[in-house]
């Protein structure tokens, strides 16, 4: 019994000593780090670390004497992402395999990717068909955009800009399966909708190459011409710094609306 008590006492003593010695080692490390930091500060003449004289208990906390960095590094490199449209044929094969295996979720994903690939191809085809220049404004090929969600209400969006040095901009946006189609169609279906006969006319109905359209004017953003195509497509032209409505109409006439409509599968 006595020997057990003795052993327990020795064990408790050793543990306490070990903990104490760890604390001592930690303090020694901390002092050494502070001394090194002070020496560096003296050499460079700047205060990069904590100020010894005004050190707060928080700064000398149990961080092992390291100088904790709070600022995250900002990224200065990286080549971005490579634009890789999905391989339609491969995704269709994947869909078939997944479907046969009963993995319907996987099959669905593969079909969605295939649709995304097809929509991006449709977008590129439409972009190729657009004019090289419009009323002296050159196309900005680097700003060409084709956006697709693969399916759904957001649909396919194609965008091209024409610009000249005088900050004149003619932006073409073609949307397929567009959710905002309904608002334009609402204007067109109701010929009396908010059209004014006096005062400042900010929007009106017109025709572009035989298609019913709506033209709007806003002092801040310029002219906007919207032409619905078929059941679910729409062309919107934003004309910035155009002098007159006629100039906007002349620019819109440069586009093959029938061709675009056909490519989008509209009747």
């Amino acid at each position, binding site marked *: 019994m006595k020997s057990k008590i003795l052993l327990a006492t020795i064990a408790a003593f050793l543990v306490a000593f070990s903990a104490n010695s760890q604390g001592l080692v930690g303090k020694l490390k901390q002092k050494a780090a502070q001394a090194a930091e002070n020496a560096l500060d003296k050499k460079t003449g700047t205060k990069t670390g904590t100020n010894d004289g005004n050190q707060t208990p928080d700064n000398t906390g149990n961080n092992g004497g390291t100088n904790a960095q709070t600022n995250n590094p900002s990224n200065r490199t990286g080549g971005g992402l490579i634009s890789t449209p999905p391989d339609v044929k491969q995704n269709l094969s994947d869909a078939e395999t997944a479907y046969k295996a009963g993995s319907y979720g996987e099959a669905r994903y593969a079909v969605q990717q295939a649709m995304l690939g*097809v929509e991006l191809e449709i977008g590129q085809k439409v972009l190729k068909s657009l004019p090289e220049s419009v009323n002296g404004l050159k196309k900005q090929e680097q700003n060409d955009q084709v956006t697709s969600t693969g399916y759904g209400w957001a649909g396919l969006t194609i965008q091209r800009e024409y610009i000249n040095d005088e900050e004149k901009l003619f932006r073409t946006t073609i949307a397929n399966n567009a959710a905002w189609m309904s608002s334009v169609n609402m204007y067109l279906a109701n010929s009396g909708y908010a059209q004014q006969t006096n005062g400042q006319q900010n929007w009106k109905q017109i025709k572009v190459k035989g298609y019913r359209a709506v033209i709007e004017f806003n002092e801040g953003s310029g002219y906007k011409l919207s032409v619905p195509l078929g059941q679910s497509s729409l062309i919107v032209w934003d004309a910035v710094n155009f002098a007159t409505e006629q100039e906007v109409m002349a620019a819109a006439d440069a586009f093959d609306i029938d061709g675009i409509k056909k490519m989008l599968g509209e009747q």
Partner: protein
Amino acid sequence: MRIFNEEHLMKKIVLSIVILICGTALVAQDFSGSLTNARSSYASGNLDDARVAMQQMMTELDIAIGKEILKMLPAKFDAYAVNEKNDNVMANTGLAGAMVHRDYGTQGKLLTIDIMSNSPMIGSLNAILSMPFVGNSGDGSQKTVKVQGYKGILQKNTDSETNLTSFTLQIPLNNTLLTLSVPDSNEADVLKMANAIPVTQIAKMVQ
């Protein structure tokens, strides 16, 4: 009399199996047909037709997924027997996605399960679930619960006239919403019923 009942039951089972097999075969045939159309249209450069065929494939897949989910659901919940004639799968490629409906019990005491993919309510439900102080109301009419590891929102409605309590349990599974509605019940029973639904398998199927 008993023999007649058993024969009648057997006939019903055989008929159900035949309908199920025919339905699956029909979906499979449609899927393969749409796949062939998509491939040939794409190969001939007819991109819009290819896209339409793929949309059709998506719809068929949504229906197939819905049918698989119906097969996973329990045949009955205690006293509530399934109303197979009310089973419904609706594919709506795009905005709302697929919807699966099944109900149990009789009129007046109808328990329903609705599963909706791409549900527009998912965002708000996830927001509620991520804030426990919002998810649990002081009057006990709403609380967050866990069913097979999935968080859900349980809502209690008490009829002011009959004093009966009905429950609605909503469980978001990625972008799919599973809703269980149980009339005239109590929380313990509702959670017991919810635990009988193979939530993990459904989540895997709709992902």
